[in-house]
């Protein structure tokens, strides 16, 4: 497959297979159906106006319950935080912060527009939080109870629907909000250090105002906060109001302000003397099934080490990579220098099924390099040290005039190439937070990795039990085996996940080869037997002059066709031909 225009190729295939050719007869049938559709009086199920939570949820970074919690903690944190360091107002807010910290518990109840409720208890001293999420309808998720211990970084979640408790590490999102809380909290008491906006955990307060108002005949201080996320490219600003009792200095209500609308009450707060001791004290039955998904410390260490090793920010090399599948060979070139990298893909195949590929391993590198010399390459992706750039190329087959002039009739010609800024550098955002999911990712989000490491997909939302086998019975020598298992995976339950996410992933990591992932098996269970649905093997290695290991032959096993009615797995072979000695010029890493 030609990598240079693969998206274009997919676009063409999709358009070709799914043309815009609605037959008149079908159109008429559909129009009749449309005309006949007259809905009843059922009410719509509204959603919250809090867009950033939806975004997080839809990016699968966060579920509704967690989103709700993150909001609660965040907003409460923001409350406590304070921002106005230089003005007289900041003193008033510092008093609010102090007043809240002195209370044993903060109890809050959020009511969302659709009737969903979230009730929570937060203890600053105990560094714990319990939450009960009560959705208004099935559209918004399922009822959950969650208990977070911030000090121990653990989280326990109970789902009444399945009567199951999942115990695991504190979610990254929650840790993020805690980071924000911590930083803000610290800042609040170290006013001498602060100047300018608070930045922590990917959020910043843009500004804050306060004024005296009257609430039900009583005076209250109204704080108006504007804050935004800095971690993403989303620059939308969220506003909320915090109403504070001037006597006790305690916040009692939080109102959200949707764009262009009046504030609406969102959260009410009170400060009881006692709160729940654990999840069971919140009403969770002790008979519930309990599954422990906490990462063993050795797994967490291994995951972080593997991710750190995969970064390889001090390497310099160029490489020619050849992809082969059923006699079709495509290729791309890679340059890497420090954190920067560039990938140029060949236009058209490097070799056709009719070409006689040398069977002698020793001749292969030279043969492919010769082929590459004759080929035309065009930039596909580039990381300039700050931004990642993606190139979109358009190609066409030789036209009649070109063929007449001697061009190969199957040759592809570059028509145009355009570039776009794709992503900011996401390393900090993802790698540190989800080492298991991202383990094995190279220094780029591209699937054509300069480091040559394949990746594996996992369902971020699914629970995962991890176990490390330091001396596995099978697999490459010297490698340790990490097994990641979804304890609640069911074949019947899988539906479209069936093809995307395995039940079990076994990854072999070789500590003697810079923690390269040298093999992966993606497995599902069918009728009591394990069935492999994907994976990869690294079958060849090379070392650079600094003795760092690189893969040279990778076999990626996947189902090109659906497994049903199809034979075994298809094998995509990737061969890497490196040059570690020729200096890579800096000019290559400029997006042009």
């Amino acid at each position, binding site marked *: *497959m*030609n990598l240079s*225009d*693969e*998206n*274009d*190729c*997919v*676009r*063409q*295939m*999709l358009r*070709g*297979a*799914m043309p*815009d050719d609605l037959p008149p*007869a*079908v*159109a008429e*049938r*559909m*129009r009749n*159906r*449309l005309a006949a*559709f*007259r*809905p009843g*009086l059922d009410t*719509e*199920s*509204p959603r919250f106006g809090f867009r950033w939570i*939806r*975004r997080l949820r*839809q*990016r699968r970074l966060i579920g509704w319950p967690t989103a709700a919690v993150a909001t609660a903690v965040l907003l409460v944190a923001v409350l406590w935080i304070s921002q106005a360091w230089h003005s007289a107002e900041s003193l008033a807010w510092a008093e609010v912060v102090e007043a809240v910290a002195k209370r044993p518990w903060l109890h809050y109840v959020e009511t969302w527009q659709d009737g969903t409720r979230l009730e929570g208890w937060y203890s600053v001293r105990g560094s714990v939080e319990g939450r009960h999420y009560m959705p208004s309808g099935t559209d918004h998720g399922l009822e959950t109870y969650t208990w977070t211990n911030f000090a121990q970084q653990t989280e326990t979640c109970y789902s009444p629907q399945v009567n199951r408790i999942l115990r695991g590490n504190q979610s990254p999102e929650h840790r993020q909000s805690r980071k924000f809380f911590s930083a803000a909290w610290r800042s609040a008491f170290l006013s001498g250090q602060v100047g300018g906006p608070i930045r922590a955990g990917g959020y910043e307060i843009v500004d804050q105002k306060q004024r005296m108002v009257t609430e039900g005949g009583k005076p209250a201080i109204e704080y108006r906060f504007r804050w935004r996320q800095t971690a*993403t*490219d989303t620059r939308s600003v969220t506003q909320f109001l915090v109403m504070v009792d001037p006597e006790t200095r305690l916040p009692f209500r939080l109102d959200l302000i949707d764009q262009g609308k009046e504030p609406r009450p969102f959260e009410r707060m009170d400060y009881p003397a006692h709160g729940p001791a654990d999840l069971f004290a919140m009403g969770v039955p002790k008979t519930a099934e309990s599954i422990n998904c906490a990462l063993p410390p050795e797994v967490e260490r291994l995951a972080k080490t593997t991710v750190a090793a995969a970064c390889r920010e001090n390497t310099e090399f160029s490489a020619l990579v050849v992809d082969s*599948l*059923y006699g*079709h060979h495509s290729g791309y070139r890679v340059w890497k220098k420090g954190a920067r990298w560039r990938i140029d893909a060949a236009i058209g*195949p490097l070799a056709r099924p009719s070409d006689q590929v040398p069977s002698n391993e020793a001749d292969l590198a030279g043969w492919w390099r010769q082929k590459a010399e004759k080929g035309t390459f065009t930039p596909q992706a580039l990381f300039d040290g700050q931004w990642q750039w*993606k190139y979109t190329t*358009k190609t*066409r*087959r030789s036209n009649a005039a070109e063929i007449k002039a001697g061009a190969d009739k199957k040759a*592809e010609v570059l*028509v145009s190439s355009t570039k*776009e800024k*794709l*992503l900011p550098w996401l390393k900090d955002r993802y790698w540190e937070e989800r080492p298991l999911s991202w383990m094995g990712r190279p220094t780029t989000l591209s699937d054509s990795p300069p480091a040559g490491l394949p990746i594996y997909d996992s369902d971020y939302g699914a629970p995962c039990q991890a176990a490390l086998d330091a001396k596995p019975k099978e697999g490459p020598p010297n490698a340790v085996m990490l097994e990641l298992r979804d304890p609640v995976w069911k074949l019947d339950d899988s*539906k*479209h996940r069936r*093809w*995307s996410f395995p039940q079990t992933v076994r990854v072999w990591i070789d500590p003697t080869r810079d923690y390269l992932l040298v093999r992966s098996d993606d497995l599902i269970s069918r009728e009591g037997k394990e069935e492999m649905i994907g994976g990869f093997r690294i079958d060849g290695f090379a070392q650079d002059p600094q003795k760092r290991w690189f893969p040279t032959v990778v076999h990626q096993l*996947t189902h*090109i*066709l*659906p497994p049903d*009615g199809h034979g075994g797995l298809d094998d*995509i072979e990737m061969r890497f031909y490196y040059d570690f000695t020729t200096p890579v010029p800096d000019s290559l890493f400029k997006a042009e």
Partner: protein
Amino acid sequence: MDCEPSSYDALIRPVQEQMLRSIWRITRVAEDAEDALQESLTVIWKRRARIGRHPRPRALMLRICVNCACDVLRTRLRRRAREKTLVDPDALHTKQGPVGERFEREEVREAISHALVRLPRRQATAVVMRYLLELSYEEIGHTLGCSETTARVHVNRAGKKLSRLLAHLAPTHCTEKKP
């Protein structure tokens, strides 16, 4: 809550043709297209107020159509997989054109459909909205509730997965149409 025909028509009518075509492009079977349309209309009706408030109501309605069509397609493919028939030969003979070509086309279509439903839902939606419906990334981002950049990532990843899944089709089906 109003449910007068006028408000309903005002919502649906401007995008009606696009809805029909979007659904047809994915389902390719009249009965399935009808089912997907019915489901889409139901969802649109239930969420009409939200759609009205949405910055890109047209794109959001198309997203609903794409989702419903993909669901119907997924159901059909599962059913067909159980029945172990990839292509109905009788249906091929009744259509015009050489049977061989039609068979190949149907086979390609089946492979693409299979690949499409194997994608994560958001990626599938994003790639269909971009490649088939030609919506802008901004519109896709709005309908998916994510940023434009994330929409690009979804499309990019979907494109890569599809190209990997459909690699065996690429040599014969990946040719740029002449301008």
